[in-house]
């Protein structure tokens, strides 16, 4: 491999890795928010996002209804939020009792959602594009597409609004307090349930947004989105699993690392690579790669 070839390859790889990494980060943010507030690892995250993406497909493609893309997304968001509330309601009785039992219960919810997708939409593979005009332009060695810009804009908007909610609103203050010390908060009269509900709803929205943006690069089937969530889980682990900025940065790191691995090593072993990343991170950086750089705040 020549140096010139390396330079020609590396910039586009970094760029596209960053773009998909933004989405892994958005997926990871949903996991981390739920984990921070309720100490539950939400294994139904990917299944719910998958169901949401299928609802968008079903309502906009004509297989169920022929709505516009935007109204299909609005409907899907509503359904995803309703399901998130129901999932939380199922777990609520045991959420303070046992982390592991509630984590098992999220797996059960995930299986139910997975079955629902297969039941309604079958095992078909479908395409679900973003309704953005297609154009490309070059920025040095990097080709920037309208899809890339859409991902960046949506990610910045959603991360920005999350930041504003957490930093500026009463709910956000409560969320930060709960994730630092739930018991003290209960003593102070903060309502833990409403904070939990907020994080579960935010998780559902973040998961669905990530799914809608990632699906155009591959295709939509009952298994692609849940397995895409492995990237989100890895991003969360890399970020320390209880740090929101960590999750976002972890997403980008995972995106870039995956791109490099699949280009230079072996694209068919992506999940094994992620397994290795998780194990190495847990061993050497149990609190996340960025522990010192940003800490666990927010």
């Amino acid at each position, binding site marked *: 491999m020549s140096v010139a070839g390396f330079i020609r390859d590396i910039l586009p790889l970094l760029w596209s890795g960053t773009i998909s990494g933004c989405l892994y980060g958005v997926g990871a943010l949903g996991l981390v928010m739920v984990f921070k507030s309720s100490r539950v690892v939400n294994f139904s995250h990917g299944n719910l996002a998958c169901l949401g993406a299928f609802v968008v497909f079903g309502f906009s493609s004509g297989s169920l209804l022929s709505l516009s893309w935007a109204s299909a997304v609005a409907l899907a968001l509503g359904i995803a939020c309703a399901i998130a509330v129901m999932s939380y309601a199922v777990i609520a009785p045991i959420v303070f009792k046992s982390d592991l039992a509630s984590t*098992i219960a999220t797996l059960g919810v995930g299986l139910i959602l997975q079955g629902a997708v297969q039941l309604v939409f079958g095992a078909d593979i479908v395409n679900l594009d973003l309704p953005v005009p297609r154009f490309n332009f070059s920025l040095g060695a990097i080709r920037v597409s309208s899809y890339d810009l859409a991902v960046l804009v949506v990610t910045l908007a959603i991360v920005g609004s999350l930041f504003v909610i957490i930093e500026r609103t009463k709910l956000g203050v409560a969320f930060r307090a709960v994730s630092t010390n739930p018991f003290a908060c209960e003593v102070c009269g903060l309502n833990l349930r409403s904070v939990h509900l907020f994080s579960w709803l935010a998780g559902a929205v973040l998961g669905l947004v990530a799914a809608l943006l990632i699906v155009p690069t591959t295709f939509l089937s009952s298994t692609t989105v849940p397995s895409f969530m492995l990237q989100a*889980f890895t991003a969360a682990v890399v970020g320390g699993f209880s740090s929101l900025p960590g999750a976002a940065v972890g997403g980008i790191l995972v995106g870039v690392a995956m791109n490099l691995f699949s280009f230079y090593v072996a694209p068919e072993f992506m999940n094994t690579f*992620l397994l290795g990343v998780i194990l190495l991170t*847990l*061993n050497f950086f149990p609190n996340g790669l960025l522990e010192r750089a940003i800490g666990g705040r927010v």
Partner: protein
Amino acid sequence: MAVSDLAHASKVSASARGGHVDIARLSVLALVAVLALLPLLAGGFLLYSLSLSIANAVAVLSVSMLVRYGGEVSIGHSFFVALGAYAVAIVEHRLGLSIAVSLPLAILLGAGGGFIFAFPSRRLSGIYLAVATMALALALPEILIGFEKFTGGFEGLYIAQDLVPGVSKALQRYYVTLVVLIVVCLALAHFRKSAQGLALLMAQAQPRAAEAMGITRSWARISIFTVSAALASLAGALTGFASSTVSPNSFTFFSGVFLLVGSVVSLNRLSLPAALVGGAFITLVPTYLAKAGDWVPILYGVALVAVTLAANAGDLRRFVPGRRAR
């Protein structure tokens, strides 16, 4: 040790002075007798499914053991099951040796794999381990397909060698797996009373007190996962033997989740009846509800949620340990 030890160990010691123990022991003995005579009644596909149920019962026990003694959840035990199953197939294909050789090898491979996997998260809360097992479950299919040269890729491999010559294949599959399951249950009953078993239970219930007795948290986490993975790999060897074939089809992402379902449905108990309930649930439900295929995940999911909620609401509070700090 008698076969009657198969009844749940703690139940035996709790009522060692009562009259219930005889009833419990007798009913387990009766169950063993019924299982031993079952091939007289069932044949063909039913016997084949029963053999697989028994092999899966051992796999369910490996997950239950992890929950009971480690307070940990794994959705990636399918990895270790596959390790054992492919060990049997590859040893037969490459070396021409039967399960008599590959079964012990599978146990060793499982223990080694479990150790390597558990080591990185030895100091962290069980939740990190659960996340890592998810990656394990998702990595498994691509490893099986990617190392086509050894694993036979999508098609998988056949396992043809018998263990006992002169006995029909169907009966071999059934009795070999049954005998191993009974031995495993006896070994688990013995383990409950062993120094290691007691130490693990203490480390889970009272980590700080256990530490003061010289039982470190990392020791507990690594040992229980190693032992449990070894058991899962043994179960895999049986699964391979009982089904005469291994292929990536039997090891999707969901196989690991299903093993957890089997464990939860059997209330994470380590007795012979519980293992059979768990094994049969995850084997027979998909087999006999094949037409309602898409309903299976929903059924499993509902079972998982319902049993978890019921177990935690009622008196089974030790089902999983309480909240733990990192």
